[in-house]
């Protein structure tokens, strides 16, 4: 029997399900089921390493414990600060680079390729080699800083004041190209006749930027920041390799703390509650952000 004949009797809806069925099943198995299971676990005192100990229902105890724990709020503050500075810097530098590369000049393609290189590296590798760059004795970073302004020996990842900046710098170095690429796509979608009309109306370059370029590129920039925001909220590998969350807990982001609670202390119930809280937080923020972004687009 030919394939054509075999599927002849299927309706369009059935064929549609045939195509999306495997994806839906996969999604249910690796996303939805773990999520539902984690929510269920978050109401228990389950420890995954305590074999034979049946989990008991504890109601909202884990949620109350997470929300009342001072250390958790410290990690959330560290995460918020990390997100704020990385997003701000990546927005400004990314847009600036996009504006630069939107111009036609010799070597444009080569420069674009070089700028994009950091985001192609593995975050764990980036974390490891920046520990060498930050080394106070032989690190290139310290050498360059001292070349311009003599600060003497300073330890970027050993100081609680500098370590948060150390991770912000590395993330900005690595992911600004992403923001830049999205912004560049936005810039290239702006029709030329808008600028030509502005020229006819004798608008200055600054006015062209404010009234044409920025509104056109803003939805793209916001989209890039949404992606970066979600990624940085769950940032883990680069920071673990770079600082292990230290010194002390100066760079211990929420995701690092969650991993320690879940897979080192094996407090499965507690960490599930923490994970659900983080999920709701990012989901809530994400939704509000998308609504704001859509409103900006509509303007």
């Amino acid at each position: 029997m030919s394939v054509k004949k075999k599927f002849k009797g299927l309706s369009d809806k059935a064929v549609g399900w045939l195509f999306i069925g495997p994806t839906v099943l996969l999604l249910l198995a690796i996303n939805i089921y773990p999520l539902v299971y984690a929510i269920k676990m978050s109401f228990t005192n389950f420890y995954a390493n305590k074999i034979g100990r049946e989990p008991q229902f504890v109601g909202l105890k884990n949620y109350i414990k997470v929300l009342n724990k001072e250390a958790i709020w410290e990690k959330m503050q560290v995460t918020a600060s990390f997100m704020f500075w990385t997003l701000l810097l990546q927005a400004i530098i990314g847009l600036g680079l996009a504006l630069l590369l939107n111009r036609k000049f010799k070597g444009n393609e080569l420069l674009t390729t070089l700028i994009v290189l950091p985001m192609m590296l593995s975050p764990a590798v980036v974390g490891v080699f920046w520990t060498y760059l930050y080394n106070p004795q032989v690190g290139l970073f310290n050498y360059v800083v001292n070349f311009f302004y003599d600060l003497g020996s300073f330890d970027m990842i050993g100081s609680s004041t500098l370590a948060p900046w150390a991770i912000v710098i590395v993330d900005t170095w690595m992911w600004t190209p992403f923001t830049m690429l999205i912004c560049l796509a936005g810039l290239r979608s702006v029709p030329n006749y808008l600028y030509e009309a502005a020229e006819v109306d004798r608008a200055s370059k600054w006015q062209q930027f404010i009234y044409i370029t920025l509104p056109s590129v803003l939805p793209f920039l916001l989209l890039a920041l949404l992606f970066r925001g979600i990624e940085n909220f769950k940032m883990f590998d680069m920071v673990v390799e770079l600082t292990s969350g230290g010194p002390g807990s100066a760079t211990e982001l929420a995701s690092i703390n969650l991993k320690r609670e879940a897979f080192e202390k094996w407090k499965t119930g507690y960490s599930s509650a923490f994970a659900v809280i983080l999920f709701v937080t990012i989901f809530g923020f994400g939704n509000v952000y998308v609504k704001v972004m859509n409103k900006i687009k509509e303007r």
Partner: protein
Amino acid sequence: MILLFVSLFSFSVNSNAKSITLGWAAWDPANALQELTKEFTAETGIEVNFEFVPWPNFADRMLNELNNKGKTFDLLIGDSQWIGAGAVYGHYVKLNDFFDKEGISMSDFSPATVYAYSTWPKGSKNYYALPAMGDALAWAYRKDWFDRPELRSEFKKKHGYDLGVPANWNQLHDMCKFFQGREIDGQKRYGAAINTERGSEGITMGVTAAMYAWGMEYENPNKPYDMEGYFNSPQAVEAVEFYRKLYEDCAPPGHSDAYMVANLDAYKSGQVAFQMNWYAFWPGVSKEDSDGRVSGFFANPKQNVAAATLGGQGISVVKYSDKQDLALEYIKWFARPDVQQKWWDLGGYSCHNDVLNSPSFPTSTVYAQGFLDSMGIVKDFWQEPTFVELMLPMQEAIHDYVVNGKGTAKEALDKIIAEWVEVFEADGKL
């Protein structure tokens, strides 16, 4: 053709059945064990596959494997602190019957190592491992620098006693500080590479070397898990303050997240006069002395009492293994005194009394006497099943105080006790 296929298939099944897998950390002694094990394979025909995991991931990898009842490993050389979890959660095979049957006596092994690596509950006669690798935290120093007359006389003039193996932690600090920032042979040198690592257990292993020497106890000996006034006693606080002073005054720049490898690197590259590290590394350090570098070694200095941080591991049979019989055969072979002697000769640290009590042992290497001294004074971190939960808050609080300079030593220790109380309460111990 069918016969050929069947015979080939059965050969393959047999060859698989005659192999076991041993898991350990990736470090020098593991290579020595691999070398030693060739003799086991030659004698028994049992192939031993090795999986060595780098130290920073060792605990995560192995404990996840055990918690998931994994069958990857038949034998595991697990850290001393895991013995509680191994026994309580049933990850390790209890070896008493096997020892009795094979005539393996725990009295043939150093008592401190049996207590630390094999027993649960502590000090009981329940054995879950054979002491495999004795170890303790100790110190190496640049003997060639110490022997220089100009440095010796300058030091004596300044401190009134000879530059040499420090008799206590105060002297250690004096000596470390003496070398801090000093130019030797045209290069800037520093005092000591000490443990400051945040991620796994590094800074805890380092700071406890000082705390034990100051006389710290984890709990009231008459009231288990009563830590108030013991773990945060004035002596313990003083020791933690001292460790911070040692870090601030004597560590090389950038040594803020350093453990075994980083300490070795700092020492081998000629940056520091001292390094804190495990005995396991001394054969390599000693062997690699070159370009005028001569290393000396000494046990952890005493302060109020003589004490050293315990390292080392026992070898256990994994309960989930399908090849427990072969794994036990390996343990039987490894327990033999002649094998233990070869183990020491190859760079492993035997815990067998025949090896340790041999008249030639103290002079067999430059670090042998120190090892003997250390193994008599070792103290270990909690070996409770919840040891990781106990380790993590200590890592965070001590790193926050020593490296980050946040708060006071007393506050750090109080914070740790508060977290530990929570852990013991959740575990039903309090």
